[in-house]
């Protein structure tokens, strides 16, 4: 079969268009959240197997690398949630003009940063004693 043009054309996209950057970031954060789902199921399964099993799982779940991953998951969650809301607004046919989408791209980035920092701060700060 003749080679046909395939989408997405990563090499010809102009990433300086923020709406494109936000769309790509939505996909990347979605993949991070899929990893987060995997971690969450591991955590729940460990809990369901009792306190001994949970203590063993804690070695992995409480490690420094895991904490780094939790930070990434929280940031990805904040971004994917807000960018997803923007997609749902788009689905109704609103906000699709170029200027509007450029503006909402900035709004998504700023709002996601605020939510991520607030949640991260809350999550890690509140747990300092435990």
């Amino acid at each position: 079969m003749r080679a046909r043009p395939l989408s997405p054309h990563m090499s010809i996209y102009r990433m300086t268009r923020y709406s494109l950057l936000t769309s790509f970031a939505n996909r990347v954060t979605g993949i991070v959240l899929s990893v987060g789902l995997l971690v969450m199921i591991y955590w729940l399964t460990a809990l369901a197997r009792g306190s001994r099993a949970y203590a063993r799982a804690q070695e992995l779940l409480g490690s420094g690398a895991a904490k780094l991953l939790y930070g990434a998951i929280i940031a990805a969650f904040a971004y994917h949630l807000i960018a997803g809301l923007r997609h749902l607004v788009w689905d109704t046919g609103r906000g699709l003009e170029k200027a509007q989408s450029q503006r909402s791209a900035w709004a998504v980035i700023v709002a996601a940063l605020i939510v991520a920092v607030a949640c991260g701060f809350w999550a890690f700060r509140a747990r300092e004693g435990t």
Partner: protein
Amino acid sequence: MSLQTPLGRVRGLGAAGNGVHHWWVQRLTAVALVPLGVWLLVSLVALPALDFVTLVSWIAGTWTATLLSLFILTASWHSRLGIQVVIEDYVHDEGLKTVSLVVSGFVHAVLAALGVFAVLRIAFGSPL
């Protein structure tokens, strides 16, 4: 009366109305995940501690067990659809693409089942 064969009439019209199904379920799960996700995040952050006893008694609550199960099912489904699009976009080899899609589907099904089972086991059995 048309002399066109039934096959000729439907050719080029696309699949029989299922074209938007993926899109629609993706959106439906997305809408459901907004309240479920916010609930989960707020609940986890609001927990006084993250030790075994606190977590187990939290999950065993009626509302928590119900909403957590719904979250796991919805998130697994949404994740499956999302990963499917990523595979379809970036894996160009037909054989590898099909295998990846099947494996991803199976892994998501196992994750969803494991998650819901874990929640129910905690809710009904209070593990030690």
